[in-house]
């Protein structure tokens, strides 16, 4: 909402400066987005009188002027305007001034060999109008030497953001009311004089849709001349950013902007018989004033005559019946439309307008008559003509809301103990009526007020939020408990653990191109696809963290990175029961390209392999508190992975905690990546929650007094037997004595039969009370050999 200070002063008696007005607007919740000060724009321009005008010696169309700027030292100025002549009083731009229309800085210069010390300006150059026929001509008595901004009464323009709850401030009068309440001046009453009709309204005005259009007031003004509107109207509309069109259009706009009251004027000649507010019929269309055709439906209210629809009610008039220069008789419409109906219709048609934004927020149902009289008066003053009697079809909702209020609430909710008398003053200034028992009657222009907190807000915002004293929250009694949940703590811990392992945390989009999401979507019940994505690249909610990290990997590789270690912790979005959202916390790691670059000690570069992924998976799972010693390495990491170099880590056969390995070449191709990539995905939601211990003391422990013993065993096993199975079998051979089993050799070739491999394990035995004797060691070895034999392993000689 834009308006000038002058316009504001039509409604507010005040001596306040623009700065004071802006500060007060901000303080009472009418946020100032900008104050445009034309005085600043016109700095450097002064009133000057042309003393002499002679033809330029080198150019036919130019004149050389001497100009009096009031300081007794006339300046020489070259000017090309046809109207430049001795005696003219105009506006001179001095060197250093910026021309508002093009931002050029004026300089002392020579034009065709003649010195020029400034520029006599046209209206267009100063952005005062479109006139560029010649230089500005001011009255002969305009004070020479005065800054032009001062002479013109430079009028600052405020641009304020109106929150959706304040339709009353979508008119200058409402803004003035708020400012007056805040002590910035006195609100001028609205002068709405009843215009007596000189003849009965010859056309029927009716509402057949009392729900959508409870009230439709109107009248006819005949014999008007639709020329241009007066300058003061034009000035005000221009300050609001509106282009003057014609008197009838300008005046309806003026009433809307001054009072927040939309109105419409139909060219009576274009209407056949009377007008009716009714529901649109299926299949009806209307070409609106913006030239576009809209398909209407039965949920929308329209204004129509016998021939068809002339107005999408409360939103936009029709092109057909709009006023033109030829218009002589007009039908004025001042109606009350149901806010919900307008909002729905506007949304369905995707059509915004100044009228819609006011009607859908709620215009004052008590301002129909006044609005009609003000508009009629303005039209007759400007365009002549005579008015018919007013027609009032239907009745606007008249009941005013009341709110039971208690002035103590200001302190209870607003934190500021405001004296009752001041509260009463504020409410009265805003148009509320306060009863003796503090029953507050809400004015019709405040549809947003419906309960006591609203009243507190009114009182506190006008009294001033600055006055509210900071009040510390009481500290909770008792011992501080962790404020993060176990899952949040897990997330934090893993994040720092991953960073400690040299991984860089990325945050990638939650949405992906559908193809990339699809590549990772197997077996989770379908992707979440947005109905209105911002682009195709942000269409599908990620079913995995890997595709986002791979896209980041590609971008980094494109920028010349050779090795990448990226991770992200976040949600993947799956379909849960009945299609509901199932968001699961996961951690993705991508290790791409070079693990180590070529070096003086290690020679060539080394690339990441599946064991790097396994190392990350296990280390991070261990940090997450997963029982890593009990995990099984099983296949089925998914089709995105290299089938022979990937696996899952499971706790039991069904609970998959992680998958890791090298990515499938087809995955890399889909992401346009040409280096090998190892990846890990940790399913944090699958990690069993640790039971929170009752206290902090650890399980008792004393290091065993006797030293542990290690023994090596080498077995021949079929090539297909997983080493992990052998290690697990050995480990289980004697749980009392074996504390760890480490596989340290996997050999095939000379000395090992075809189809077999040699696996060597180092077994660590922990004696208890006394050292092992030979017999005991032998027995343990036999148990180990026997356990391995169950897998087909044969002890190597």
């Amino acid at each position, binding site marked *: 909402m834009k308006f000038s200070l002058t316009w504001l002063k039509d409604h507010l008696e005040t001596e306040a400066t623009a700065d004071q007005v802006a500060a007060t607007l*901000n*303080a009472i*919740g009418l*946020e100032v987005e900008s104050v445009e000060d034309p005085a600043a724009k016109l700095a450097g321009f002064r009133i000057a009188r042309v003393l002499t005008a002679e033809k330029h010696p080198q150019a036919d169309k130019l004149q050389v002027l001497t100009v009096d700027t009031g300081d007794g030292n006339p300046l020489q100025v070259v000017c090309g305007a046809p109207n430049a002549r001795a005696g003219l009083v105009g506006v001179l731009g001095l060197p250093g001034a910026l021309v508002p229309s093009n931002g050029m800085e004026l300089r002392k210069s020579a034009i065709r060999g003649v010195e020029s010390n400034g520029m006599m300006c046209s209206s267009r150059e100063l952005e005062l109008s479109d006139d560029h026929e010649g230089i500005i001509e001011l009255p002969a008595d305009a004070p020479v030497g005065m800054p032009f901004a001062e002479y013109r009464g430079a009028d600052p323009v405020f641009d304020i953001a109106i929150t*959706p709850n304040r339709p009353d401030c979508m008119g200058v009068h409402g803004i003035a009311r708020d400012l007056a309440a805040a002590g910035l001046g006195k609100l001028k009453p609205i002068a709405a004089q009843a215009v007596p009709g000189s003849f009965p309204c010859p056309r029927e005005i009716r509402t057949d849709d009392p729900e959508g259009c409870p009230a439709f007031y109107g009248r006819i003004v005949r014999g008007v001349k639709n020329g241009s509107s007066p300058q003061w109207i034009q000035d005000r509309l221009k300050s609001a950013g509106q282009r003057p069109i014609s008197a009838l259009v300008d005046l309806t706009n003026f009433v809307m902007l001054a009072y927040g009251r939309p109105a419409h004027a139909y060219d009576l000649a274009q209407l056949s018989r009377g007008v009716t507010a009714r529901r649109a019929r299926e299949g009806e269309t209307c070409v609106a004033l913006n030239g576009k055709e809209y398909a209407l439906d039965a949920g929308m209210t329209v204004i129509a005559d016998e021939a068809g629809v002339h107005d999408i009610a409360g939103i936009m008039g029709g092109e057909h019946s709009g006023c033109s220069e030829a218009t002589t008789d007009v039908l004025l419409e001042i109606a009350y439309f149901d*806010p919900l109906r307008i*909002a729905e219709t506007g949304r369905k048609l995707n059509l915004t307008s100044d009228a819609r934004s006011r009607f*859908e927020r709620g215009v004052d149902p008590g301002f129909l008559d006044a609005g009609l009289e003000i508009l009629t008066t303005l039209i007759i003053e400007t365009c002549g003509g005579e008015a018919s009697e007013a027609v009032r079809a239907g009745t606007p909702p008249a009941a005013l809301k009341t709110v039971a209020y208690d002035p103590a609430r200001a302190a*209870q*909710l*607003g*934190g500021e103990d405001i004296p009752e008398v001041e509260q009463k003053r504020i409410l009265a200034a805003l148009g509320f009526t306060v009863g003796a028992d503090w029953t507050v009657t809400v004015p019709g222009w405040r549809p947003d007020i419906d309960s006591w907190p*609203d009243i*507190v*807000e009114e009182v*506190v915002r006008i009294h001033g*939020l*600055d006055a*509210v*004293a*900071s*009040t510390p*929250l009481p500290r*909770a009694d008792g011992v*501080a408990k962790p*404020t*993060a949940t176990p899952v*949040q703590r897990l997330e934090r811990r893993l*994040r720092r653990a991953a*960073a400690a*392992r*040299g*991984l*860089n*945390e*990325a*945050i*990638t*989009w*939650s*949405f992906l191109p559908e193809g990339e999401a699809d590549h990772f979507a197997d077996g989770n019940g379908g992707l979440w696809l*947005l*109905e*209105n994505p*911002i682009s195709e690249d942000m269409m599908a909610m990620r079913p995995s963290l890997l595709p986002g990290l791979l*896209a*980041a990997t590609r*971008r*980094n590789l494109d*920028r010349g990175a050779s090795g*990448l*270690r990226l991770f992200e912790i*976040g*949600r993947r979005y799956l379909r849960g029961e009945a*299609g509901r959202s199932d*968001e699961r916390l996961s951690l993705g790691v991508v290790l791409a390209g070079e693990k*180590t*670059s070529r*070096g*003086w000690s290690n020679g060539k570069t080394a690339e990441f392999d599946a064991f790097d992924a396994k190392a990350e998976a296990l280390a991070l799972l261990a940090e997450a508190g997963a029982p890593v010693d009990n995990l099984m390495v099983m296949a089925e990491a998914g089709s995105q992975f290299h089938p022979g170099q990937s696996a899952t880590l499971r706790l039991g056969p069904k609970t998959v905690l992680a998958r890791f390995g090298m990515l499938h070449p087809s995955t890399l191709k889909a992401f346009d990546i040409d280096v090998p990539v190892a990846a890990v995905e940790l399913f944090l939601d699958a990690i069993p929650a640790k039971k929170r211990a009752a206290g902090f003391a650890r399980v008792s422990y004393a290091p065993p007094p006797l030293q542990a013993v290690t023994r090596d065993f080498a077995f021949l096993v079929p090539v297909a037997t997983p080493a992990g199975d052998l290690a697990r079998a050995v480990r289980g051979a004697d749980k009392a004595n074996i504390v760890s089993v480490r596989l340290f050799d996997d050999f095939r070739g000379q000395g090992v039969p075809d189809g077999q491999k040699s696996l060597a394990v180092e077994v660590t035995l922990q004696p208890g009370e006394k050292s092992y004797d030979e017999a005991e060691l032998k027995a343990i070895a036999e148990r180990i050999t026997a356990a391995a034999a169950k897998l087909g392993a044969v002890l190597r000689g």
Partner: protein
Amino acid sequence: MGRRASGPEALRDGAIAPNGSALQTLTDLGKVDIAATGTEALARIAAAQDLDTIEGLRVSFLGKQGSISGLLKTLGGMSPEARQVEGPKIHGLRETVTNALAERKAALEGAALEARLSAETIDLTLPAPEAPKGSIHPVSQVMDELAEIFADMGFAVASGPEIEDDWHNFTALNMPESHPARAMHDTFYFPSDAPSGTRTLLRTHTSPVQIRTMLSEGAPLRIIAPGRVYRSDSDATHTPMFHQVEGLVIDKGIHLGHLKWTLETFLKAFFERDDIVLRLRPSYFPFTEPSVEVDTGYSFEGGRRVIGGSGDDPGHAWMELLGSGMINRHVIAAGGLDPDEWQGFAFGAGIDRLAMLKYGMNDLRAFFDGDVRWLRHYGFSMLDMPTLSGGVGTPA
């Protein structure tokens, strides 16, 4: 020099007995010249160039068949008088030789070690193996900072789904179906397939967590809820995904003054400046009443916005930092609580923006690009854990 004298001088001292009888007796007994034996032994030891030679000499002098061992054995056959004379000389000889052997051995060992070490010299200007340096994303870091700051004020951390329904995201927050404010939210929707008519959408703010937490926890409540939110908006300063933190306090007797204190305390702690000045402006949010927008003063230093001071101070201006207000009674009721019994406040702020203002990033889009150069530059060490004792922020 704490050691006893040894070598030829000592031998000579021993050899010159005051009565001269030693030499006589030796000559008598021995056909062996102890002094000469000693001199020769010492010369050979001094000439030895390796440890093997030293060991050979030790055996030849002191081994079972060694020459000095042989002399010692002769003592057994001597008369007590002769033994008294010869004993010390022979023992002296043995000690002298033993010491000389040890000394020479140590010298040779020292030389050998020195030679080995010299051969082992390496060029330490060569680079050491590189350990990859990990980093924490600034958004995560700032979320941790917020959790820490608010923990001190007793706020727990809550969360909720990002794929929400329109009831939690809008209706329960006092934005019914046709509410104009809904249109201001640039909402991402999913195709509606639910016959119930509820729409599934990406949450446009963290405020639905208010409702969910009220419903699940009841009152009183003090929570913050950081997380991802989504708006269908993309330009230089807006990304369709960003991060917000919601704050919610519900208790008895909570008023606007508490909100003011909480925001002041939070922002001062976050920016670690005492001169944070807030300007509260009345505003409108459907879910709060009264509603307050909060501006903070800032100035430009070195082309960057620096929070601090009053926006009305010279060279300063106000910037909108967060939205807040006393929770609307409808919202409290939607959260299953009695609005006559409980009241409270809520606020919401952009985490990415807080991070940018504090740590000096200027491009929001870079946050979600994953450029490792950016991540390493603006990221944090895993050891930069925000703590109250160590400082919540990490200095540059």
